[in-house]
């Protein structure tokens, strides 16, 4: 097997050295319970708070609480905010949301009017439809910052403007798992809650956070020792939080991923004329820097994925959280893609350790696989 080319960074990322060192120190020397009253416990609490402050100021949030990851942060924002409301308001979520948001909203369908806001062919929110759907009954709106499958960047400012105009009391929750650190965001602008995950930004798994604006009131969904201001019981994951802080501080300021992504896109398009890009134009600001979704008809995605894996290139088919099941991607379906394009869609996702050499090799290998496999199609 050739050396590994990892292009599945939207699924998870390799922890950076700084994060690993922080985990090590935390587990070896600072393993104390942050709720303990002796000095060591106090220090553990202080390092948690250091990360909290860092995230709070980066996001201009009122408060930040730590969770076990993005899924829990999304669940807490949605279920916690709705539990605090007395009236049965409407819940709107973007049709291309990650399951952590979509399934959580759907779980409210028995007691609330839950609806999915459609997207256009690029995976971007249909603002006209959103305007129609927002009314004074609306209690919660969930719009992700960056789509995890096609990398579309949602126009959050437009959504906030619509919300302020149509239903100013409705909370706006943003799933920032793919957007955090990669794109600027501020909770001052009108976002009420923002979920993030450490392992998507070179931290470690099992750690995430939920940033809250001042007006966002939550009811806890886990009960116990009253940690995290009573909103999230359970002894804090000090090592995970230490890694998250290190990963944030270590994250490169300059975002060179756009260049790499465009190199990948143009390389593939020039060699494989049959290929198409799914989602917004990779050069535009409506597309994020690290996710590129492309179809290679007529070769089925899983076949291509297997063939690429054998050559040392790891990519994914749609969203890794739902792959392993042959169901078509919800995002690509919502975008109204033709079946053949859906069946042959691969997601390449880049990370801070991706090199231009890797991109060039990957382009050659994708072309090689495609040439080999395209001759065999169902007749």
């Amino acid at each position, binding site marked *: 097997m050739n050396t590994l080319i990892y292009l599945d960074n939207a699924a998870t990322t390799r922890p950076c050295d700084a994060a690993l060192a922080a985990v090590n120190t935390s587990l070896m020397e600072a393993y104390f319970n942050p709720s303990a009253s002796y000095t060591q416990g106090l220090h553990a609490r202080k390092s948690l708070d250091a990360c909290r402050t860092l995230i709070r100021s980066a996001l201009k949030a009122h408060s930040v609480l730590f969770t076990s990851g993005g899924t829990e942060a999304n669940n807490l924002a949605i279920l916690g905010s709705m539990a605090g409301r007395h009236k049965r308001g409407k819940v709107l979520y973007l049709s291309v949301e990650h399951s952590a948001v979509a399934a959580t909203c759907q779980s409210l369908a028995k007691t609330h009017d839950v609806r999915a806001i459609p997207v256009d062919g690029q995976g971007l929110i249909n603002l006209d439809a959103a305007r129609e759907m927002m009314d004074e009954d609306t209690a919660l709106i969930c719009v992700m910052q960056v789509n995890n499958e096609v990398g579309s960047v949602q126009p959050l400012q437009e959504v906030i403007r619509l919300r302020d105009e149509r239903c100013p009391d409705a909370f706006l929750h943003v799933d920032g798992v793919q957007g955090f650190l990669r794109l600027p965001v501020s909770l001052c602008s009108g976002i009420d809650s923002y979920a993030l995950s450490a392992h998507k930004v070179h931290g470690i798994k099992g750690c995430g956070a939920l940033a809250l604006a001042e007006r966002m009131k939550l009811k806890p969904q886990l009960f116990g020792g009253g940690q995290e201001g009573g909103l999230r019981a359970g002894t804090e994951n000090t090592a995970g939080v230490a890694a998250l802080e290190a990963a944030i501080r270590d994250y490169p300021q300059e975002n060179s991923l756009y260049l790499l992504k465009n190199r990948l896109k143009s390389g593939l398009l020039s060699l494989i004329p049959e290929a198409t890009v799914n989602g917004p134009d990779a050069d535009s600001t409506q597309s994020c820097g690290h996710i590129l979704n492309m179809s290679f008809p007529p070769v089925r995605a*899983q*076949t291509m994925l*297997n063939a690429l*894996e054998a050559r040392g290139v790891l990519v994914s088919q749609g969203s890794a959280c739902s792959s392993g*099941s*042959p169901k078509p991607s919800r995002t690509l379906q919502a975008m109204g893609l033709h079946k053949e394009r859906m069946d042959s869609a691969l997601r390449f996702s880049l990370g801070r350790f991706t090199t231009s050499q890797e991109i060039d090799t990957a382009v050659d290998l994708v072309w090689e696989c495609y040439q080999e496999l395209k001759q*065999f199609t169902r*007749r």
Partner: protein
Amino acid sequence: MKKHLLLVKYAEVHLKGQNRPFFQRLLLRNIRDAVKPFGGKAQLHDSRIFVSGYHDEEACARRISRVFGVHAVSPAVQMDKNDFKKICQTAVEMTRDVRGSFKVAARRSDKSYPMESPEICIEVGAYVLQHNPGLQVDVHRPEHVLQVEIRDDALIYVKSIQGVGGLPVGSSGKAMLLLSGGIDSPVAGYRVAKRGVELSAVYYHSFPYTGEQVKDKVIALGRILTDYCGPINLYIVSFTEIQQAIHEKCPDDFTTLIMRRCMTRIAGILAQKERALALITGESIGQVASQTLEAIACTDSVVNQPVLRPLIGSDKLEIIREAERIGTYETSCLPYEDCCTVFTPRHPVIHPKLKQADYAEKPLLESGLLIDMLDRAVNSADLIRIYPDAEETRSVK
């Protein structure tokens, strides 16, 4: 002196005449292998098998109940036959959590024992009834039978776990199972193994159309089968080249049939290698186009060995129920995408004639292509020996 042990009763082996020692030896061997992980030791005594020395009685008994040839397993207590009071007390202890109707059945092979069987029944029954108010006597249709046997020692047992029956694996030779990862083939293997046949298996891997996950799934299915029938040699045959050649050279409507014929040929060659006497498939008449009688005739014509199809008359639902019962269903249903649909014709021939099939296959025979491909497939096959214990999977080639 009280000893806990498991009494294993065997099924059809009992009916064997002069061959019985042969079947008993195999059953004993298979049970010994099965109880090894529990630290248990099995011994043949008085035409019955006793297991002792295990550390987890319940799990050990369940494990034994899955060995083919076992009719039932009973946790029993062996003790001094001369202290009748103790025998009665032990009977009470063993029936402590038993409720409903019961009777005592006594057997006395030691004819010098001072009490006769009916007397033992009456005395033990009365004592138990006196100490367990949750029980009533019913000698005609009891829910529970408390067995007291007087041999060299006294043996007392009441509970029994139903075994899977059948004949001990190894008593009826070996066969080669075509294992696909679907629902049917593991059940087919189970049924044949139940008649004492040792299994080897072959899986056709079409990388990159089927991924590594599917291979893992097939190994997992094989491992579930080993629980019943002991270690299995699984051949993993790379099938992509053959599939692509069929796709390129043969008429569309015959591709599935020709593919089945190639699979059967390879299984036939591997069966010879393994000294397996037959092939096993999970086919059932009419389930898909390649499982019509005509298609089956075309497939069978390419091998000399008999092809066993134990599911031939079963409905899908019956097969699913059996798969659930033997524990393969959940694994068979793991949803890994099988991209071999690329090679599935939209309109496969349903009533092929042998002559047509031979003709459709002709392009593969030119310049010995098929023979070369079959050779390559057989010679490059990976062989994995699967043991019931997940950790012991190892490549032997």
